[in-house]
């Protein structure tokens, strides 16, 4: 039989050895994992302007097509401009901004609590002589976070392309938001009306046939059986895009 003393020592030594092994493995593997996450972000951004990038060429294509990165405050002023691998203004690279914490800052401010001024990233893409504006999105789905990118054409109101991703929406229902069939509905829709009043693009339960004809340009069909996720996509698009309203209005004038 083993004494209690032996059991305690055995357990403690085991836990310490295991902790040491796991933490050193995590430290060693971290750079590789971060690179993967970064590459995925780049591929997602490029995908929203219909550039399918392979992993190996993601960096090259990003530098080729994304000509400028901006960080915008809620008044629509650029606090950071990153262009040709150089800072023209500010010192936070917009690509490195964590959208999640910026959204949280904004929620705090909206609720009347104290928080820093949020900065929202905007990527400007130049593809075949056309300029596209790519806005990253993030919101809450049914089971976990959902995210995406939305690319606007030069008029800054027509959608050129979108991508959506999710952590754990229901397969076959909410998870359908990450399929091309759902995403291609957004192409050609507009987020402003003719007078540049913000309308967003709504994901409509029952289909856009239920909307007035002149509103259908601001809506897409929801996923059947995925109402909560569809509503979440609607909210995410509206909540994220509204932060860029001021900037876009300034650009249009």
């Amino acid at each position, binding site marked *: 039989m083993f004494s209690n003393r032996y059991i305690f020592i055995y*357990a403690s030594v*085991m836990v310490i050895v295991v902790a040491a*092994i796991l933490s050193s*493995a995590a430290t060693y*593997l971290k750079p590789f994992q971060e690179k993967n996450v970064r590459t995925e972000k780049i591929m997602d951004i490029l995908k929203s302007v219909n550039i399918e990038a392979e992993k190996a060429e993601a960096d090259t294509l990003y530098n080729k097509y994304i000509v400028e990165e901006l960080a915008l405050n809620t008044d629509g002023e650029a606090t950071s401009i990153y262009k040709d691998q150089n800072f023209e203004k500010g010192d936070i690279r917009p690509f490195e901004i964590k959208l999640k914490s910026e959204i949280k800052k904004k929620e705090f401010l909206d609720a009347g609590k104290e928080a820093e001024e949020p900065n929202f990233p905007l990527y400007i893409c130049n593809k075949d002589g056309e300029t596209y504006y790519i806005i990253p999105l993030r919101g809450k789905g049914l089971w976990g976070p959902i995210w995406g990118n939305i690319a606007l054409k030069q008029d800054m109101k027509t959608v050129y392309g979108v991508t959506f991703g999710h952590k754990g929406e229901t397969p076959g229902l909410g998870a359908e938001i990450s399929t091309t069939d759902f995403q291609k509905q957004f192409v050609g829709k507009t987020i402003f009306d003719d007078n540049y009043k913000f309308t967003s693009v709504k994901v409509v339960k029952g289909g856009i046939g239920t909307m007035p004809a002149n509103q259908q340009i601001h809506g897409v069909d929801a996923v059947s059986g995925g109402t909560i996720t569809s509503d979440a996509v609607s909210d995410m698009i509206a909540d994220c895009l509204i932060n860029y309203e001021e900037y876009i209005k300034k650009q249009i004038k």
Partner: protein
Amino acid sequence: MSEEVKQREPLFSPKNKKLIFNPLSRENPITVQVLGICSALAVTAKLEPAFVMSLSVLVVLTAANVIISLLRNTIPTRIRIIVQLVIIASLVILVDQVLKAFAYDVSKQLSVFVGLIITNCIIMGRLEAFAMGNKPWPAFLDGIGNALGYGWILLTVAFFRELLGSGTIWNYPVMENLGLYEFGYKNNGFMILPPMALIVVGIIIWIQRSRDKELVEEN
């Protein structure tokens, strides 16, 4: 299986060979012992994740078997389950981290299921039933055997689900290249859903039992 393996027996003695080959058929963890069904349903929609899952289970099960077998005489009986769990959990975290670093796409597809290897009954079962009472070499073989027994079922299920559900084999568009779509052939979306994995596993069990009458219960 629990009798002591005598010293100086050849590495691949008949008894040791049994350790590898029995779990492939007569003692198969999935079709006979019906363990590890959850993951068999969840990761078999495509061949690639099924393969990575099998490989992960192979690594975790074999390594855990060997480690437990090496430590078997030092492990206090009263906390043996905890020791087993700690070792399985650490190995699973290591595998998960390595996948995240070097096979990111697959690790995203497998998502929580890599973490859930911890709760895979096959692993706990082998540790408790075999590794705690046997030497490292037989434990190693037992680990490989059971992981292969688990793996080939997973891959067989995944093969049929991917072929009939998505029309591909390892992402290679077989059905498209055969030109079947032009004749009005359609992929069966039902195959992608978890219930079909259960039915495919059921068919495998059926075939196995009809060929090996000893597996059929009396009543």
